[in-house]
Structures are given as structure tokens and as C-alpha cells.
């Protein structure tokens, strides 16, 4: 614990984030990040992804450890269910991104959070991925996030936290806007 007497502590080092934003003014190139993961097929619909190094702030960076994730499909798809489905990872990513944003923005605005919980649901018509109906898209037809937040703030202040976290969320942006994607064979 630091010895500062700030009343609000959501465990987010906002000064460091704002410091990074100020550093960008002089050296905008350090803002260029590159995220990476590698994936290996295990068998069936089961694969394992590993995530460790990334590039940012002008140099190669590493996580504290290499994180690995099993990706599979459930028994209902006649698969082995060795991990969650890729689409569920998308929901995990969205929830993690929005919630990190809520904590950071609350810290910046001097709002103490006591509990933040969200339920995230996506509607998905699998006619698309099964190739059973060319008019149905492969992806979600809609995503709903429902937050329950207990905080020292007015209802409108809490609404503003949730709105601002969407405005500044990478994963929300990735889901709501198109992105160029190339897949090649090397």
C-alpha cells in the first residue's frame, strides 16, 4: 500500500495511464502496439493457444508468464469440450475489456467501486456456420451486456461510467466496427 490518502482505491494506477498518454504527445510512435498469439491444433476441434510476448512502448514486452488457453466445442457438437468455444472467448474479452474500463474510469473520476458484475449474452443462429442458410451470417446477431454495479456514486454517474467504458473499449470497437483481416499460408 502506498501512503497517499486518496479516498478512492479501485486498484487502478490511473497516474501511470495518464503519464503514458502524456508521453505519447512527444513520442507518438510508442503508441504502436502489436498483440500476438500462437495456436496449435491438438485434435478434433480442440486447439491450444498460447499468449506471451507482445510489442509496445517501443520494445518487445512479455507477460509475467506464458498463458495458454484450450479452445474446443461442447459435447452437444459431438466434440470433447476441452475448453470453451471461440465465440465464448469473444464474450470473455468483451466483459474483461469493459470492466477494466469501468474500474479505470471510476478511479479517474474518484468513484469507489464495491462490486461490478456483468452478464453477457450473445445471440447466434448457427445456420450460418453450418452452411445451412446462406442468408444468415456466421457471427452473432446481437450482444447484450447487463451490468450490476455497487458504487459510491449517483445512478447517472454509474450510467456515465458504463457509457464511457464502451466509448474507450478496444473489444467493443472491434465487435461493433469492421476490421481488415488477412489470413495467409506461410
Amino acid at each position, binding site marked *: 500500500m502506498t501512503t497517499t490518502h486518496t479516498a478512492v482505491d479501485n486498484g487502478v494506477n490511473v497516474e501511470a495511464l495518464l503519464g503514458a498518454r502524456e508521453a505519447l504527445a512527444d513520442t507518438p510512435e510508442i503508441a504502436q502496439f502489436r498483440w500476438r498469439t500462437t495456436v496449435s491444433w491438438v485434435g478434433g476441434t480442440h486447439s491450444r493457444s498460447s499468449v506471451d510476448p507482445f510489442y509496445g512502448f517501443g520494445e518487445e514486452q512479455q507477460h509475467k508468464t506464458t498463458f495458454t488457453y484450450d479452445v474446443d466445442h461442447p459435447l452437444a457438437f459431438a466434440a470433447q469440450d476441452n475448453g470453451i468455444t471461440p465465440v465464448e472467448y469473444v464474450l470473455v474479452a468483451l466483459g474483461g475489456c469493459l470492466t477494466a474500463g469501468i474500474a479505470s474510469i471510476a478511479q479517474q473520476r474518484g468513484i469507489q467501486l464495491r462490486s461490478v458484475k456483468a452478464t453477457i449474452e450473445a445471440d447466434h443462429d448457427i445456420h450460418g456456420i453450418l452452411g445451412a442458410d446462406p442468408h444468415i451470417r456466421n457471427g452473432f446477431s446481437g450482444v447484450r451486456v447487463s451490468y450490476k454495479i455497487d458504487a459510491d456514486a449517483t445512478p447517472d454517474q454509474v*450510467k456515465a461510467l458504463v*457509457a464511457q467504458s464502451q466509448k474507450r473499449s478496444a473489444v467493443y470497437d472491434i465487435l*461493433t*466496427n469492421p476490421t481488415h483481416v488477412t489470413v495467409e499460408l506461410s
Partner: protein
Amino acid sequence: MLKTTTIVVGAGHCGLAMSRCLADRSIDHVVLERGEVAHSWRTQRWDSLRLLTPNWMTRLPGYAYQGDDPDGYLAAPDVVELIANYAKESAAPVRANTTVTSVAQDERGYLVQTDQELWHARSVVLAPGASTVPNVPALQGSVPVGITTLTPVDYRNPSQLPDGGVLVVGASASGIQIAAEVHRSGRHVTLAVGEHVRMPRTYRGKDILWWMDAAGLLDERYDEIPDLIRARNLPSMQLIGSPDKATVDLNSLSQLGVQLVGRLVGIRDGIAQFSGSLPNMVALADLKLERLLDTIDGWATATGFDTDGPPRRFAATAVPTHAPLTLDLSSGAIRTILWATGFRPDLSWLDVGVFDRKGHVRHDGGITASPGLYLMGMPFLRRRKSTLIDGAAADAADLSGHLAHYLDAN
């Protein structure tokens, strides 16, 4: 080569306000104007456009509105007349039809080249107008052939548009005004909505700008607000200056029959793609309006201001349940795209190294790092009202003071 102490580039309300302040300080100067006084208002504004600020707010150094309609909004030709009269009354040393082609530094000040002559001045004030060059997104290059594209600078009235559907991109003052007008002409309008600033025309019996002025919000200074980058990049308020004091917002546009969609984020194979972020865009704008009204009500209570009505809140913006995410531009449904995606000043002739990497002039409240070079009329230059006519007086007073001090010291 002609010589003067200070050259003001641009004879709009900002340049003329500065000229008046310089004259009051007996600083020898000329005002160079590419066209006639109030050039943009003469040549770049659509027919129905009126000022967004009420007439009583039309205050310039040594000038205040004296007409019989203080709560009305001037039409574009009236704005031209007003600014021209102001120039005449001030006896502003305007050189009209003189286009500046280069401003460069020399050891004693600045060399200003025009299409008429070469000038030398110890200091230069840039008043080029914040709304001169329309921004057009790069994806214009992907618009299928056969679709007419235009900007608010080219737009005059609906009759110049082809029959058929219109996609208006951008929901700030220009976008909402043009969307409503074009829809009334019988064309189906789709409005692509990104970040926007929702604003009722009137509140508790007064113009919303009356409240913002009275409560001191328009006087908030650039060096006293928490996030200047954000404040300087805010879209314009969703306002229209119509005699009936109508509020035009996304709800009223939806009721007219305008189709709301998310921000235009791509055009691929002739298909326009809209962001799925529309619900959050309207949530942000609704919450921001609530905070503004809270501030106004708090001020009214604290000052005991007796008004025509009690505090009220406006209905939340209704978001279409399934706003389309795509629109096939080759289907014939859309014949025109209107880019209401903001403006920027034209400073292409400025050959002084004061630009940031995005091409904006770096300045501290209008004072650039190049000694004797000043900027006026940009969003939140020194105050929230810096882009309003009513903001020019305070900014010109401050900056002419700084300029005079600079001249004395050098």
C-alpha cells in the same frame, strides 16, 4: 514591399474584432481578405442556414445588436450585412480580394505574400475561419460511381439533389439541419450518427445559450478545464436557429421518418457499413445533456433566478431496435451522400513550423510558439465560446494585449 506592424489574415468576425482591438491600441495593421468581408457567409452557406446564437449574443468589440428581435437568429445574408457594417463602422483597414499565398518568418517578423503584393509585418494574426474546408472521410474513394457526393459547403437546398434517397453522414448542427430539410423535400433520408452533442433549443423558457451564458459555461477557460483535447474536438451542438425555436434532435428526426444508423465506418464492395455503437452514442449524448441541465438547474437554484418554468428532463433518445448495419449503395436506394463530417481551417499557405503531426496549429490559447504569430476562432481556443461570434471580443482583447506586449518588448 509594403510594410505594416500587424497583418490580420481573414475579415470575418474574428479578424475584424482583432482589427478593432488593434486600432484601439493604435497598432498599425491591415486585414487581408481573399474575397469580400464575411466571405464564407457569402459563398459557403446553405440557403436556410441561420446563426445558432440568438441576436442579443451578437456582440463584438464596440458593437452590440440593436434590432427589434433580440431573441431571433440572423439569416446568412443578415450575418453578411452585420459583419460588413461592423467593418465599415470600425473603419477596418480591409484589403478585399487579396488572397494570402504564403506567410513565412524572417529575422524581423513575417513575410506575407499575396496574389497582389508582398508585405512585411512584425506580427501576424491568423483568423482563417474554423469552418472553411469541409472534412471528407477517406472512404469517399469507395463510394460507387453514380452516387452524387457533396458537403455542406456545396449544398444550397434540396432542389439541387437528384431524386431518391440521401445518406447524411454526421449528426452535428449541419447534419441534423440538412437531414430534416432534405427529408421534408420528399427524399428518404438515412442519417449516420457518431458522437454528437444533444441540445434543446430552449429550456425553462429561455434559449439554451442564454443559460450557458448566464451560468458562465461559455466563459470557461481553456487552461481551467480538465480535458482540453476532448473539449477542442467536441462536435458542434445539435442546434438550429429557426424562428419557431424548434429543437431538432434524433427523436424529432426519427418522428419525421429519418432512418437513424450508426457511424459510417466502411464501404466495402459497394456496401456501406455502420457501427453497432449507436445505442452507446445516444446514451453518451443523453447523459451529457442531463449533466448540462443539472448544472443549469443548480445555478438557477443557487442564484434564485426566477424563470418561466420548472426544471424538466427530455425523453431519452429512442434507438431503433434493429438499425441496419449495412446499406447496399449500388441498389439505387441511395442517390446522394452528404458529408456533414466537420470542417477545418484553410492554413495551407502558412509556411511557419507551428503544426503538430496531425496538421493542426499548436498554440497556447491562440499564442503560437512562433513569436508574434497568433491564431483566432478555433474550437475552445481560449474559452468555450471561442467559435461563437460572442467569443471573439474576449479572445481579441486577450490576444491583442499579448501582441502589444510583444511589440513593446521587441
